[in-house]
Each structure stands twice: as structure tokens, then as C-alpha cells.
């Protein structure tokens, strides 16, 4: 019987197209995405048809997660504004008699987020900023009986007078309405009536009034 010779094939594959694809995807991700900002709590925002993009600007960011914990963050773009941060926490410190030391106040300048009731702040501030994330913070109380967010906002209004500060609210899909209501109440008590809700974009359903408006080119101006 004649032996059939099976030609020995190389197991090498040409990887070049694979590399091409990999780097193409890589280039796409580098250009089309933005780095995530560090977040103290995970929030999935609801969607809306709004067309205005979130701008990076000085703002008071009020966040609440699905369990209703409220966090307040002071977003300031410039480094020079750190003095304002210090001024802000100092004001709350004096007003609520927290008894924080100078060094502890400086920690707020680094973290700029508050997520605890006033009476627990002393304990939080005693620890280094790096550990704050690991601590289970309770959130700022916003219930009707004890709306501490109201006091924080009052202090912020005094501190940031004459500065353009937007108020942004970022809430989780599954948060219950009362925590949103508590935030609104706190804002209302401080006479802040205009604010922005941070949402994910979504398309306008065709055939609706807004859709017709946008088609005619008027909707954009009406919103901005």
C-alpha cells in the first residue's frame, strides 16, 4: 500500500489583520469615550429627551443613590477656588458647631464631598480622606423633620455669592420619590427654583409635539 504523505501544515496564523482590528477598536475607544470621573456612589440615571449636554462648570452636585442616601459635592473647576471650599466648610463648621480642626477642614478641600449627618462628620473627618470611600456613610438627612441639606445649601449660598453656581441633581432610577422631594424641599427653602437634572440621552419619539418642534428647528432654541 502506498503511504499517503500528509503535508505538514504550519500552525502559524498570520496575526496582522487581527492586530489591525485590535488597534482600530482601540483608536475608536480612545477617541469616542471620556474618562469616568471618580464617583462616591454608583448611580444609574434615568433617561430624558433633553438635548442640552452636561457642561463642565462650577456646580453644586446633589446626588442620591437607590437607597436614598444624599451626597453633596462642590464642583469647582479652578484651583484658585480652593479657598472658597475651605470657606464653605468653615462656615458650616461654625454654624453647626462641629468642632473640626484646621487640618480636618483641609480634608474637605481634597474630597469636596459630604455624605454624612452633621453629628457624624467629626468622626468621618478624623480619618484620612483615602479611607472615606470605605466608610459606610449615611448620607445627608433630607426628611421633613431634619433637613440638613437645607443648612448646607444655606451655607453654600453665602459662600458662593456672586459666583455662577448651577445646582445639579443626579438621582438613581430606583430611588424613591421622598428623597427627591427632600432635595427639592431643601432647595425651595433656600429659594433655589432652577436646577438641572442629570439624565442619559434618549431619542424623541416620532409624531409627538416636541418631535415636530425639533423638526421645524425651533425646539433647540426653546430649550436653551
Amino acid at each position, binding site marked *: 500500500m502506498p503511504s499517503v504523505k500528509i503535508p505538514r501544515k504550519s500552525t502559524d496564523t498570520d496575526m496582522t489583520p487581527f*492586530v489591525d482590528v485590535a488597534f482600530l477598536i482601540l483608536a475608536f475607544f480612545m477617541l469616542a469615550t471620556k474618562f469616568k470621573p471618580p464617583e462616591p456612589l454608583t448611580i444609574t440615571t434615568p433617561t430624558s429627551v433633553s438635548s*442640552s449636554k452636561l457642561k463642565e462648570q462650577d456646580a453644586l452636585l446633589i446626588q442620591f443613590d437607590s437607597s436614598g442616601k444624599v451626597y453633596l459635592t462642590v464642583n469647582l473647576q479652578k484651583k484658585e477656588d480652593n479657598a472658597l471650599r475651605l470657606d464653605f466648610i468653615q462656615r458650616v463648621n461654625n454654624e453647626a458647631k462641629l468642632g473640626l480642626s484646621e487640618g480636618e477642614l483641609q480634608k474637605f478641600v481634597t474630597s469636596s464631598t459630604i455624605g454624612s449627618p452633621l453629628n457624624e462628620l467629626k468622626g468621618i473627618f478624623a480619618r484620612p480622606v483615602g479611607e472615606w470611600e470605605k466608610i459606610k456613610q449615611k448620607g445627608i438627612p433630607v426628611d421633613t423633620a431634619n433637613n440638613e441639606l437645607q443648612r448646607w445649601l444655606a451655607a453654600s449660598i453665602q459662600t458662593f455669592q456672586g459666583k455662577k453656581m448651577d445646582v445639579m441633581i443626579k438621582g438613581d432610577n430606583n*430611588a424613591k*420619590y421622598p428623597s427627591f422631594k427632600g432635595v427639592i424641599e431643601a*432647595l425651595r427653602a433656600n429659594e433655589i427654583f432652577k436646577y438641572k437634572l442629570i439624565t442619559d440621552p434618549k431619542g424623541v419619539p416620532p409624531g409627538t409635539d416636541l418631535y415636530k418642534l425639533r423638526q421645524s428647528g425651533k425646539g433647540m432654541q426653546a430649550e436653551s
Partner: protein
Amino acid sequence: MASMDTSGGDSGHKKGPGVKKAKKLSTRVDMTPMVDLGFLLITFFIFTTTMSTPNTTRLIMPKDEKDPEKQTEVKQSGALTILMAKDNNLYYYEGQMEGDGSNFKSSTYKEIRDVIQKKKTDVMQLGRGLGYHPDSLDRDLVVVIKPNSDATYKNTVDILDEMAINNIQRFALIDITDTENQAIALTEQKGGGK
């Protein structure tokens, strides 16, 4: 050079015993580490970045008006009240709620758009009869949004968004009353929640 024989076959010139053959080096580079690196970077970018920039929805709330004389009066014919309850249930009524709850209806987040649109057309029809300016035919229309304490933030934003979608100029976010809460509880008991 290109056809230099390396097989050492019988064709070609014979070389002397001391002449060494130059070994032909392959120009092929192993691409595998490069692919590894590429995909490693891709995974890194996927995990550390976000695709879409979030949007902002503007919300302007009315001032607290303690003086009853200055409070906005809502025409019965132009009022639509939307109540949000737990498990994404939605209820609405037009005008004032009847004592027997006959105009208290349940709906869903998908169907509510039709309800709002219908109400808007009705009110605009009425406005035309009253001789309103063509640009403000719907000025009597006020949508009252009342989430109860079991409604989620998403529900609230969805309905606020619905206001934007249907271009409702006047709407209000108000606390739910006890009567309305009872009506919701009754409907849920009856199993009419869906």
C-alpha cells in the same frame, strides 16, 4: 538571490565542503504579543471610560405661594392629574376627582402619552371656542404631577420628560393627598392596578 536554493537538492551548483550556507531568516514577525497588548488596552479603555456624555434637564419649580389670593387657579376643564404609585403603576383623572372615583383611571407609562395628547387636543379645542390667541390655545392646560412615596425617581423624571415630549407649558409637581392615596390603595386592592 531570490531563487537561491536552500533545500540542498541535487540541482544547482555544488558547493565546496567548507562553504557554509547563509541561513535565510524569515521576515515574519510574531504578532501575538502585539494583539495581546492591543486587546489589553481596549479592555482598559472600556472599563475606565464612558461612552455618552450625560444630559441635563432643566427643571424650574414655582415659588412657594402662601397668599391664597395669588395662588394659581386651575380651570377644571384644563386640569389633568397624574398619580404615580409603586411598581410603575400610574393613575390619572381629569378635572376634579369624583367622590365615587368614577373618573379615576389607571394607566401605564406607555399609554399616558396618548392620554396627555388627547387632553391637550381637547383643551385646545375648548380654547378655540373661547377665542384664545392661536399661539396659546393650550393655556388652560395644567398637568398636576403627584408621585406618592412609593414612586421612584425614574417615574418622576419619566413623567417630567413626558411634559417635554408633549410640549406642555404648565405643569406642577405637588404632594399627593390622602384621598388620592386611598383611591390608589383601593384600586390596588381590587387588582385593577394593571
